[in-house]
Structures are given as structure tokens and as C-alpha cells.
């Protein structure tokens, strides 16, 4: 059997049970981009064959790892997994955001295509999510900022993100007082005054990475979503659907709680 690859910095994106006691693990690695390898003895649930050697515990999303494998980056065998640093747990209320980042990487990153900058941005986003422990406006803003920064970095790495500071066609800098619409693949087009669109001032702030005001965050969300939807080309994001389902069940439960005669 071939020698294992040199250990590389990695995160688990997703784990799928495979056969009786194995799993296919999708990693995001710093040096090889997405890697998909087979791991023995870590799944599936209910097989009763799970080894208690800690590998299953390490192979969890959002934990910094060092991994090596034998064979191809697509279809090889997991060789070694080690923790790289102290364990990181995301606050429960931030887990959905973490899953969302993972789905973006799974759906938009090609296998074995290294993007160290996206990896570093992913790592940075997880650090922000891990620190956003409460439900204060500050924590929510930090969470939104981390997601937008990551989306921006990912789209840029994929060559799908234009310049948010200039107008398409003319190449003129944006007018802070004007509104624009974003056409994926083309860029920002000015719209007639009075027509709803993205504020020039917000887009300029976003282009400079100043993502801390609610208005800028809202504009960035719309603009980046436009680009992501184009990149996804009609493929739905399951994490978005599940997040919506969670919001719905919470809302109906809140209603039920309110309607109780004794409360």
C-alpha cells in the first residue's frame, strides 16, 4: 500500500455512512482544497462497531484537524487524524451558520483544487461564530459579518465576484447616493432614482470590507446571495431549507405557547 500523504490542515465538512462500519468523509484542506476519502470504523450509527479510539470523536465538523490519507484525494483512504489545537465548539445557536458554510464549500468547491485563502477565511469565520455566544445584536452582527466575509472570499476565489466599487460598463466609481442592481457575470448597473436597488454607499462600504452596520450587512446579503444563486445554478441549499423549517416550527410553537389559556 502506498505511503500516506503528509499531514495537512483540514476540517470535516460532512460525513456520510458507507457500508456497515465506514464513512465517506468530505474534508476541506488548506493545501488540497476539498478531499473526499473513505474512513473505516467511524459509522454508521447503530452498527455497534464503532471503535472507542477517539477517531469518531475527532471527525466532527468545525474541529481543526491534521489529516493524511493514502491514494487519491478523491476516493483514497483516511490514514491519520489528529486534533490541531484545542477543541472548538460552536454555540448551539450558531451551528446552523456553520452547516451553511460547509454546504457552500461542498456545493461550490471542486475536489483537489487548493484555495488557501478560502481556508483561512473559513477558519476565521468559525472563530467569530465560536465567540458569538449570546443572542445580543452585537453577536448577531458578528455572525452575519462572518458569513458575508466568507461568501465574498469564496466567490472571489471562484472568479465569480466582480468589483463592488465600480459601475459595470462605464467603469466609473459608484455614486454613494445612487442605487444599483447586480447582474451576475456583468456587474453593478445603475437604476433610475426611486427604483429599489442596492445603495451605492452600502456597496462601497462592503467593497472596503466594512461589514459592521446593519444596512451594509443587509445590502451585502442581497448582493452576495444573487451571486451565490447564480453559482449554484438552480441547486437548492438544503441548509437554507432546514433553517426555514426550524424557524417555522419555532414560530408555530411560540403561537401555541401564547394561545395557552393559562399563560
Amino acid at each position: 500500500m502506498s505511503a500516506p500523504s503528509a499531514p495537512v490542515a483540514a476540517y470535516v465538512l460532512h460525513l456520510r455512512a458507507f457500508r456497515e462500519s465506514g464513512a465517506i468523509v468530505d474534508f476541506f484542506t488548506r493545501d488540497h482544497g476539498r478531499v473526499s476519502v473513505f474512513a473505516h470504523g467511524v459509522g454508521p450509527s447503530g452498527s455497534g462497531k464503532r471503535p472507542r479510539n477517539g477517531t469518531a470523536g475527532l471527525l466532527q465538523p468545525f474541529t481543526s484537524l491534521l489529516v493524511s490519507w493514502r491514494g487519491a484525494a478523491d476516493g483514497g483512504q483516511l490514514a491519520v487524524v489528529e486534533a490541531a489545537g484545542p477543541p472548538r465548539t460552536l454555540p448551539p445557536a450558531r451551528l446552523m451558520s456553520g452547516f451553511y458554510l460547509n454546504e457552500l464549500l461542498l456545493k461550490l468547491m471542486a475536489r483537489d483544487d487548493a484555495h488557501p485563502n478560502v481556508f483561512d477565511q473559513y477558519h476565521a469565520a468559525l472563530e467569530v461564530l465560536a465567540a458569538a455566544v449570546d443572542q445580543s445584536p452585537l453577536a448577531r452582527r458578528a455572525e452575519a459579518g462572518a458569513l458575508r466575509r466568507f461568501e465574498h472570499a469564496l466567490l472571489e476565489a471562484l472568479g465569480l465576484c466582480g468589483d463592488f466599487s465600480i459601475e459595470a460598463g462605464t467603469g466609473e466609481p459608484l455614486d454613494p447616493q445612487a442605487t444599483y442592481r447586480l447582474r451576475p457575470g456583468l456587474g453593478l448597473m445603475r437604476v433610475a432614482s426611486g427604483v429599489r436597488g442596492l445603495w451605492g454607499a452600502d456597496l462601497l462600504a462592503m467593497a472596503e470590507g466594512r461589514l459592521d452596520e446593519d444596512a451594509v450587512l443587509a445590502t451585502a446579503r442581497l448582493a452576495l446571495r444573487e451571486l451565490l444563486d447564480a453559482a449554484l445554478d438552480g441547486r437548492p441549499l438544503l441548509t437554507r431549507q432546514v433553517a426555514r423549517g426550524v424557524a417555522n416550527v419555532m414560530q408555530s410553537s411560540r403561537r401555541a405557547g401564547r394561545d395557552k389559556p393559562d399563560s
Partner: protein
Amino acid sequence: MAFQLLERRRDGAHELAVALSAALEDVGHCSRCRMLTDGDLCPVCADPRRDAAILCVVESPADVVAVEQSGGFRGRYFVLNGRLSPLDGIGPEELGLQHFEALLAEGEVTEVILATNATVEGQATAHVVGELARQHGLRATRIAQGVPMGGELESVDGGTLAHALAGRLSLE
């Protein structure tokens, strides 16, 4: 296993086949807690001595068996038959959370114990179920100690599990 049965134990193989097909035909889910059962209610839900005020939420029927074997639990269960797994599109609907909510709305339950696995998906599941319980003004506790990260309840020994149940923590 199939070869061994065919070669050495043909009678046994026949019995197994009959048992399996009976299981496939008769076994459904408990209308109250979603546990596998061949009746309308599972034995736990049908037992009047079980405490209806305490509801233990688990991922799988095997977890019910594991907690029952620990012997220290006298409440009832709710079986999700899965875990929140957003990347696989498994959300509240697949886990029967509307049904869970309806159960809470009946008003008998006063405490919900979250005994989902100590995995990231198990934590996400516990978070959502716990929020629902809190919206109904209920105490939500999470088994915390003794279950290793990445650990599945069914593979934890009874002693550890009993400890984990005894040492459950209130979710803030």
C-alpha cells in the same frame, strides 16, 4: 451470515426469514412516541406506572433500549428517528417535531431531557428541541457527563449512561 445459515442451519434460516417478514409487516411506530412497536402504543407509553411528566428525547429506538437497560429512568420517551442533519436536508419535519410539539401542548409533560448523541448534529438537534420545550415553559435538561464527543448512546455502557442521566444539566 447468509451463507452460514444456508449451509449449516437451514431450519434456523427459515425461522429467521419468517421472523423478519413478520417484523416488516407488523412493526410500525408508536403513535405517541414514535418508538418501533407492533401495536398502536409501545409498552412504555402503554404502561400507566411510567411518569408522563418527564419526556426523554432520543435519536433512535436503540437509544431507548440503551436507556431502559440503564434502569434508572421512569419517564417516557420521544424518538426522533434521526437527528437534525441540515446538509442531508433532514429537518424538523423528518424528525416529527410537529408531533413532538403537539405532545407538549397536551400539557402533561413538565420536563424534557435531551438525550441526543454527543455529536455536532446531536447538539444542533438538542438545541432546537430544547428551544421548543422552553417556548412551552418547560424545564429542558441535557445529559452532559460521561458521553464522549462523537459518542453514540447505544455504544456507551449502562453505568456511564446512568451517570450521564443523573448528572444532566439545565440548559440556560
